[in-house]
């Protein structure tokens, strides 16, 4: 068998391959040769073969058959063999393969080898791919090496220790004594790696952090002053050729030290004080002409922002960032924008000063910079600058890439909602967004807009006129068309009558309006949701318009046989309205009431998507034949069953329309996240809507020691719920129930949600729970307060529904509670 070719030959041959297929062929041939060579157990050429195998692995071809060979190489005595063997182990093996455990003994022997290079190799490999078993076995050796005086080995041992700690956190204490002397070294390599080790320890365990921060009076090895001293030396010392990078000594070490100082100084006044001087010094003395200097300044700024620094220092930091922004280099500007974004929460005013520069960055060509500038601009919008900022942002929306448009549009909506100076401006802005980026607007924006429009009563005529003009030209943008058709349906009479204060009134006839709506219905570009909107709008116009009712009837009856089920259902129901229930038609189709203002804050939005505000309209009719209103994800109706209906007490009295559908809408609109959102310790998970009411943090009625016996309302599968009662002194028909949920199984229950419903004569108010996790073994409970108003002093009954995650599966249960003690409701 001829000697296998050398690695270089192989690379050369592969480079001559002109197509992917040729390359694959060559590699297959070579792999076959290597495999047969391995089978022959040829020692001399093994390392060459493995080297070739590694190259092929890098190109992306499978090379797992070489793993055992790597092990054999490691076991050999020759250094070159060991080198390739360890390299192969690092690249090909990881803890998923069982083979790697065989390496443990080899590594152990090599860690005690006489040659430092072999020891170094072993340390590298262990630090790269050691599994937790290997780490546990070999940690003692690593620790011993950490204490040697050989700096080459010490630095490798430190990095290996980092890996060990990452894999097996419990071993951290073992390395603690060794770290005491690490920072006394002169060798920068050792310093660097030991700082990395300390950083890792501090990040992983708060105990370690506290330990390092402590000022030990007797010993002189306090960590923060030591670091400060090292940093000072680095800056002050003159030119040192081995560590110099464009005029600054060892910037990598400086950056690492700064990062460690940041971790030590976070939330700790003493450490922060000790660091103030050195940070100021670094900030002022570092040269900014080269990238290196800027890198150090960037890290310094991040550190200053994070620790409890004094205000002068913070101002210095923001000024540095401002200078970065004006720099021509893109990298620096990007970095400045990123850090400004982080600081804008805390130092809002300072960042405002740079607003104009930031807005200029919106026009930059670079995608990353544009994205950062956009996010930062949204964070900077406030009541004073909203008009100017909006102009810039709208211009940006026009010209930016599609991937930004959705985010930009939602951002503009949010900002407009919070800071709109006038309703007309708000509506104008929204219309502008709809027309420019209509198809990228998110679905849930449509109901929000509709609600906004209903709220601004005096603007109805103006709004509907503008919307009409907008869709006259182009009706391809779905959200725009949806909003427009809804408005035309509602306010069509205003449109036709031609009265409008704000703008020149246009003359529109009823036929023209119907034309437009019909073309929307027919057009291929309309989604089925949009068609639903259009059909309903046409229907509503039958009461608003006077002379075209027949035409409307005709249109509606055509769609009674449409293929689209939703459209067909609607058309059939509307037909029924014309025929059998004609007397009810005007009442049913009159104007929608003003909707409750809902502030959508993050995940707690409740408005259903896809124009399902329409079901609210449908529900105002008497129950349509056989079809229940489509209530998506409405556990409420499940809970309520047939006859019991809960009315949840709204925190602010609203005018409730009498129909059941109106109640539903009200329920949804009831989420008055008044002012301060609840900063409950529980995370705001997506709870079903009606639990989020009553967020006024009223104090519990603790005024009576009632002595009412508590009951166990539910006990099943290890979950127990107790009810404790209290009657209020001030209002004798209110009972306050405090529920306590406890878990006697051995696993926690997470995402626990408690819902309750009471009969019609009662009113129920549910406050937020203390948390959503019930720890196991009865070690903790969730408490939640329920207030029940019982004006007629009837027997209290309650139906409860529990949902939670337990043992990895979602559980759900319904139960009735009937065993309320008489004192709780009499």
């Amino acid at each position, binding site marked *: 068998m001829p000697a296998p070719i050398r690695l270089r030959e192989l690379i050369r041959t592969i480079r001559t391959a002109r197509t992917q297929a040729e390359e694959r062929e060559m590699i297959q041939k070579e792999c076959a040769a290597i495999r047969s060579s391995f089978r022959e157990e040829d020692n001399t050429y093994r390392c060459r073969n493995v080297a070739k195998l590694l190259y092929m692995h890098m190109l992306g071809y499978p090379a797992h058959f070489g793993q055992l060979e790597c092990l054999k190489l490691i076991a050999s005595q020759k250094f070159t063999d060991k080198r390739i063997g360890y390299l192969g182990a690092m690249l090909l093996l990881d803890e998923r393969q069982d083979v790697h455990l065989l390496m443990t003994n080899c590594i152990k022997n090599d860690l005690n080898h006489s040659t430092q290079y072999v020891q170094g190799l072993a340390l590298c490999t262990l630090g790269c791919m050691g599994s937790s078993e290997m780490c546990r076995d070999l940690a003692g050796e690593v620790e011993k090496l950490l204490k040697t005086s050989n700096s080459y080995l010490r630095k490798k041992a430190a990095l290996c220790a980092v890996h060990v700690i990452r894999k097996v956190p419990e071993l951290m204490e073992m390395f603690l004594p060794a770290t005491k002397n690490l920072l006394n070294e002169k060798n920068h390599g050792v310093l660097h790696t030991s700082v990395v080790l300390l950083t890792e320890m501090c990040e992983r365990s708060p105990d370690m952090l506290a330990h390092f921060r402590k000022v030990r009076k007797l010993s002189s090895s306090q960590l923060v002053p030591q670091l400060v001293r090292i940093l000072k030396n680095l800056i002050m010392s003159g030119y040192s050729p081995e560590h110099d*990078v464009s005029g600054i000594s060892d910037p990598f070490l400086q950056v690492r030290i700064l990062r460690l100082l940041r971790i030590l100084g976070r939330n700790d006044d003493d450490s922060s004080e000790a660091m103030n001087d050195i940070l100021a010094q670094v900030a002022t003395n570092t040269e900014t002409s080269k990238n290196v200097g800027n890198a150090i300044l960037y890290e310094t700024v991040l550190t200053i922002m994070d620790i409890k620094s004094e205000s002068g220092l913070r101002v210095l930091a923001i000024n540095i960032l401002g200078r970065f922004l004006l720099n021509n280099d893109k990298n620096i500007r990007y970095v400045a924008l990123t850090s400004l974004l982080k600081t804008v929460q805390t130092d809002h005013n300072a960042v405002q000063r740079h607003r104009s520069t930031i807005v200029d960055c919106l026009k930059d060509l670079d995608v990353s*910079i544009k994205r950062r500038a956009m996010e930062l601009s949204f964070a900077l919008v406030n009541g004073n600058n909203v008009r100017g900022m909006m102009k810039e942002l709208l211009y940006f929306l026009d010209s930016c890439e599609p991937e930004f448009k959705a985010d930009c549009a939602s951002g503009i909506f949010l900002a407009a909602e919070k800071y709109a100076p006038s309703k007309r401006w708000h509506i104008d802005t929204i219309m502008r967004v709809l027309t420019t980026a209509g198809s990228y607007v998110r679905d849930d924006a449509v109901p929000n807009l509709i609600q906004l429009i209903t709220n601004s009563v005096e603007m109805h005529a103006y709004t509907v006129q503008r919307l009409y003009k907008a869709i006259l030209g182009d009706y391809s943008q779905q959200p725009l068309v949806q909003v427009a058709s809804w408005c035309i349906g509602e306010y069509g009479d205003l449109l036709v009558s031609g009265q409008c204060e704000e703008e020149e009134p246009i003359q529109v006839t009823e036929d023209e309006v119907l034309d437009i709506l019909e073309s929307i219905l027919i057009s291929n570009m309309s989604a089925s949701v949009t068609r639903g909107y259009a059909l309903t709008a046409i229907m509503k116009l039958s009461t608003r318009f006077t002379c075209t009712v027949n035409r409307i009837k005709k249109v509606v009856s055509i769609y009674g046989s449409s293929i689209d089920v939703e459209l067909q259902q609607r058309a059939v129901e509307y037909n029924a309205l014309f025929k059998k229930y004609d007397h009810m038609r005007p009442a049913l189709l009159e104007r929608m009431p003003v909707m409750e203002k809902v502030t959508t804050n993050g995940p707690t939005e409740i408005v259903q998507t896809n124009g399902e505000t329409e079901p609210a309209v449908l529900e105002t009719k008497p129950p349509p034949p056989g079809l229940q209103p489509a209530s998506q994800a409405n556990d409420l109706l499940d809970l309520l069953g047939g006859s019991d209906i809960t009315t949840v007490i709204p925190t602010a009295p609203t005018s409730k329309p009498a129909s059941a559908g109106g109640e539903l809408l009200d329920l949804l609109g009831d989420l008055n996240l008044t002012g301060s959102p609840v900063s409950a310790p529980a995370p705001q998970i997506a709870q079903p809507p009606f639990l989020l009411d009553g967020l006024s943090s009223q104090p519990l009625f603790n005024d009576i020691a009632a002595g009412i016996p508590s009951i166990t309302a539910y006990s099943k599968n290890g979950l127990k719920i107790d009810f404790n009662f209290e009657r209020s002194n001030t209002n004798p028909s209110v009972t306050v129930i405090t529920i306590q949920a406890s878990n006697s199984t051995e696993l926690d229950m997470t995402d626990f949600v408690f819902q309750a419903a009471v009969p019609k004569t009662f009113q129920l108010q549910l406050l937020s729970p203390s948390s959503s996790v019930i720890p196991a073994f009865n070690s903790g409970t969730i408490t939640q307060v329920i207030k029940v108003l019982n004006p007629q002093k009837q027997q209290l009954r309650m139906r409860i529904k529990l949902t939670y995650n337990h043992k990895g599966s979602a559980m759900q249960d319904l139960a009735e509670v009937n065993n309320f003690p008489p004192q709780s409701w009499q």
Partner: protein
Amino acid sequence: MIKFFLMVNKQGQTRLSRYYEHVEINKRTMLEAEVIKNCLSRSKDQCSFIEYKDFKLVYRQYAALFVVVGINETENEMAVYELIHNFVEVLDKYFSRVSELDVSFSVSEMHL
């Protein structure tokens, strides 16, 4: 934390790859191809940091070779940028005026 370190040329051929986190072998080629596509589409005056999936790429071009490092948020981007340059300078010293051929042919030295 550095996730990976790549040296890829303009045609998309990988000259050096070092992964510090486990990535499936077939995904690696895909990753490399996508990464190089992202880097190639940027012009000279755009900044060297790209946001890609859930981490950042820091890249630097030397003649026909791109050095790309994938990092997560805890790293200082500019320090990594300097690191790349430092690495290239070291190679330069080792090979005395390094070129792409040197990189392709001395895989084992590169790794160590």
